[in-house]
């Protein structure tokens, strides 16, 4: 068959990319080969636009056992154990089919973790949707939440935390980023390599169907009105099959009969085969006629490109085959030998013995195109960073209630109640605010986990906004008492072929790098999701950071909720006149404008150290960072958690906008601020500790009563009954659905 320009174009390959293929092969590719190149060189698999930037991230450190390049990263957590973790996106499929898109996103990241020989113990997710008053958004939201729950609950891995944001730009392009963490023995981590000529290559798991063909290519294109027609490109998840694979693979891994293993995620059999070969410097030969197939008459092209879920590729040591087969049989899984490792460095695909593709494995991986795409500072920035005149502010109590009702700030209980967050009995801090905390059984340690990102800040200043995301995730784990020891990122952006988007991306990666270096958080892996646009309108640029914090003593942790009546409330950090990019501007004025809060990385680092020290010695009884909605919302959240009221008097701030003094103090989102509570008798101790750390501190109030009262510079500005405020906040999201449910 002759490869025409049209065929090349339909595979999403640029003319010069096709030229590169011709040169590498020294001949015209077969259609199967063209399909293989197209998925491996897709943005999703090759990172061709992002790689040059990602290389600048800090990826090493004393605790790093595995950096980027494997199925997941790993850091040393002591006791001979490693935390294996990664975050990954499933944005495009989740718009087309919310339940299955989100479910298979969960399934995919879980496979990445157990593939490394780790038992997954925690899931988190970071989600973005359009405004909930739109029926389409509600359907997407409910479907995504049900899909995440449906998969995680069934396989028995708790979803212990996460965050959700809302903005019009996500209406046609929701974000579903899933983080998974597992625990492995540090010296028994298994990699995705194929080596040792003659070793058998096994296929195990679900049968291959025609689902998901060109999923990776779809994830590398913008959405338009025809996207719904791509529904067959979304896969269907089977958590029970994955549970069998998980248990069987972990059992096989205990035997040391494996050389390497990799799951078949994006680009399916193609990606796993050539990546394992490339990593091991070996060739791999498979015959697709041995691959278990769900449908009759599948072509080699379809088998190689299928993204059917719950499938694994294994390389088994010679002579150990029957041992491995027996374990899979125990779990009613059939491991099928489909080929072997060779020495020629080629990925050779046969069909009934006849060669249908023969490509150097490295041509598909390291040989993929690498782009230094043009970048331009976007024109919108000048205007967007200027705060327009806002008129007179609404009364503080009205703003407070409107913020509590806004879905970005409102309680997410309606969501996390649908996730099993307690299975495995390790969850020390239930979801709701801040980091999720899980203990590590068999040790005295625990891990604090947080995923964070703020698209508004990144839109207004990608460099600063990305730094703020790193800082917030790190601050959240430190509030629980966790020392940040590693990070992973999921970079959600628009079309990189637009210079403005590429500029946002590059600046954000620079920001992440600078923040991670300053806070000593190596990035051990992650995922890039580009082309998040619908009909030419990009999402807010949304890098999401996942940070893992180590807690040495699992009995010394803090959550955000106040603990006892009479405790003193202290504010760590400094409040400045900073409304730029705030939830206040978005909710009350419909604006994403202004300059994001300033971030002093040295001061942030000092704050993190102070928090870890204060929590681990038992001085800090609760800690909660001031993020969306500022100081007033943070204080309210501390109260809601345990039903204890509070009274606070916070210092005044000079403001540029006349009349916005109270608003700025109450709802501004200055960075590096945390509300902590300590026993009344230990305030001086906390103040000394903060002074030594170089962190500004002010004793602002006390816990108690049944109201939330805030004064600014001695003048009362907010006085709300706790119970009523709590009800607004806790029912807000559910109300979008229960009313709809009532009308059918």
């Amino acid at each position: 068959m002759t490869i025409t320009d049209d065929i090349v174009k339909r595979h999403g390959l640029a003319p010069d990319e096709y030229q590169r293929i011709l040169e590498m092969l020294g001949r015209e590719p077969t259609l199967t080969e063209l399909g293989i190149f197209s998925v491996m060189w897709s943005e999703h698999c090759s990172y061709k636009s992002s790689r040059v930037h990602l290389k600048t991230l800090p990826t090493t450190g004393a605790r790093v056992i595995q950096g980027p390049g494997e199925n997941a990263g790993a850091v040393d957590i002591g006791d001979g154990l490693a935390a294996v973790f990664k975050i990954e996106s499933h944005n495009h499929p989740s718009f087309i089919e919310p339940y299955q898109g989100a479910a298979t996103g969960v399934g995919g990241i879980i496979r990445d973790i157990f593939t490394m020989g780790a038992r997954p113990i925690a899931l988190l997710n970071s989600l973005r949707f359009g405004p909930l008053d739109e029926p389409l958004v509600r359907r997407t939201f409910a479907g995504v939440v049900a899909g995440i729950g449906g998969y995680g609950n069934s396989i028995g891995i708790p979803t212990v935390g996460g965050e959700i944001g809302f903005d019009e730009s996500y209406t046609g392009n929701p974000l579903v980023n899933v983080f998974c963490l597992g625990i492995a023995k540090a010296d028994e981590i298994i990699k995705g390599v194929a080596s040792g000529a003659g070793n058998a290559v096994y296929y195990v798991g679900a049968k291959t169907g025609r689902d998901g063909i060109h999923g990776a290519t779809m994830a590398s294109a913008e959405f338009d009105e025809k996207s719904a027609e791509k529904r067959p490109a979304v896969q269907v998840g089977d958590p029970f099959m994955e549970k069998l694979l998980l248990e069987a693979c972990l059992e096989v891994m205990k035997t040391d009969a494996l050389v390497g293993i990799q799951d078949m995620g994006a680009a399916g059999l193609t990606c796993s085969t050539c990546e394992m070969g490339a990593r091991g410097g070996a060739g791999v030969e498979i015959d697709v006629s041995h691959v278990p197939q769900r449908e009759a008459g599948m072509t080699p092209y379809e088998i190689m490109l299928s993204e059917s879920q719950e499938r694994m590729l294994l390389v088994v040591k010679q002579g150990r085959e029957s041992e491995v087969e027996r374990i899979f049989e125990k779990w009613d899984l059939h491991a099928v030998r489909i080929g072997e490792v060779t020495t020629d460095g080629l990925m050779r695909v046969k069909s009934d013995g006849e060669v249908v593709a023969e490509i150097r494995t490295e041509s598909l991986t390291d040989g993929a195109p690498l782009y230094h795409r043009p970048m331009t500072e976007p024109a919108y920035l000048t205007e967007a960073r200027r705060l327009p005149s806002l008129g007179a502010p609404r009364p503080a109590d009205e703003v407070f209630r409107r913020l509590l009702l806004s879905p970005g700030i409102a309680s997410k209980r309606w969501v996390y109640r649908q996730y099993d967050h307690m299975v495995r009995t390790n969850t020390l801090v239930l979801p709701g605010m801040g980091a999720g905390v899980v203990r590590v059984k068999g040790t005295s340690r625990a891990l604090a986990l947080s995923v964070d990102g703020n698209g508004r800040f990144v839109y207004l200043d990608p460099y600063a906004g990305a730094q703020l995301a790193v800082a917030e995730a790190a601050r959240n784990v430190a509030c629980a008492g966790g020392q940040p020891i590693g990070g992973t990122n999921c970079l959600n952006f628009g079309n990189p072929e637009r210079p403005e988007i590429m500029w946002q991306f590059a600046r954000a990666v620079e920001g992440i790098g600078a923040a991670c270096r300053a806070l000593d958080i190596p990035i051990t892996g992650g995922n890039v999701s580009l082309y998040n646009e619908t009909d030419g309108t990009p999402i807010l640029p949304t890098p999401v950071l996942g940070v893992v914090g180590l807690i040495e003593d699992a009995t010394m942790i803090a959550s955000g909720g106040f603990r006892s009546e009479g405790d003193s409330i202290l504010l760590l950090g400094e409040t400045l006149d900073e409304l730029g990019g705030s939830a206040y501007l978005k909710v009350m004025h419909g604006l994403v404008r202004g300059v994001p809060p300033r971030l002093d990385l040295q001061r942030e680092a000092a704050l993190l150290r102070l928090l870890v020290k204060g929590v681990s010695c038992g001085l800090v009884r609760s800690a909660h960072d001031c993020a969306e909605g500022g100081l007033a919302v943070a204080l309210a959240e501390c109260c809601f958690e345990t039903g204890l009221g509070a009274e606070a008097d916070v210092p005044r701030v000079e403001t540029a906008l006349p009349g916005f003094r109270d608003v700025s103090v109450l709802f501004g989102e200055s960075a590096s601020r945390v509300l902590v509570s300590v026993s009344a008798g230990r305030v001086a101790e906390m103040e000394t500790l903060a002074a030594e750390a170089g962190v500004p501190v002010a004793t602002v109030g006390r816990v108690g009563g049944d109201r939330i009262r805030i004064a600014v510079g001695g003048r009362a500005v907010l006085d709300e009954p706790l119970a009523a405020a709590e009800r607004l906040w806790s029912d807000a999201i559910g109300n979008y659905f229960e009313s709809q449910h009532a009308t059918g």
Partner: protein
Amino acid sequence: MKFAIVVFPGSNCDHDAYHATKHVLGQEAAFVWHKDTSLQGADVVILPGGFAHGDYLRTGAVARFSPIMPAVQRFAEAGGPVLGICNGFQVLLEAGLLPGAMLRNRSIRFQCEHVVVKVECTDTPFTSRCSPDQLLRIPIAHGEGNYYAEPEIVEQLEARRQVIFRYATASGAVTPEANPNGSVRNIAGLCNERRNVVGMMPHPERACELAIGSADGLLLLESAVHSVGQGTFVTTP
């Protein structure tokens, strides 16, 4: 004393039950694979939570055909204590060891949260250390926990005092508001006529340590140890 924890391929609370009985309670515990046919001389059998065979058909519907089930049946008929938790409860219903069936939650959604249950009877191997009307804070985590039985069966359960746990408010009132899933008469757990087989939707194994939110569930496992120790619930040959 030895607890047998039956492991179906999709069980996912098996490790939690093991941890609770072995490491928290300090008793002997063993996993029993569903394809086995012997309970390995256990004194107490736990059918743990999870999704036994994926449960795409109906929860627990396939599990009752597992090779281990005849042994569980014989153990129960001989008077041995059997506790089915969540999916384990659903398996007991499907296997006919307990009457009734599970429907989807009234909310039509999966629900994971702490609830309060009231202990109705203390003359079972899993409540012997509880006091009558005691309130226990134990989590639920299920999508199909809406217990249903024909009205005459429900009347019979009540008459024979087979309802062991009911969902209640924090102050102990059995009200519609306290019912998380729509179960008939707020039923959270029940026993068989002989009172040695207990099924419950809440997860006591998730409530055995204060560090994870509650230790109330431990009382149920301690009851089993006590009852077997007293010789009140042991298998008769």
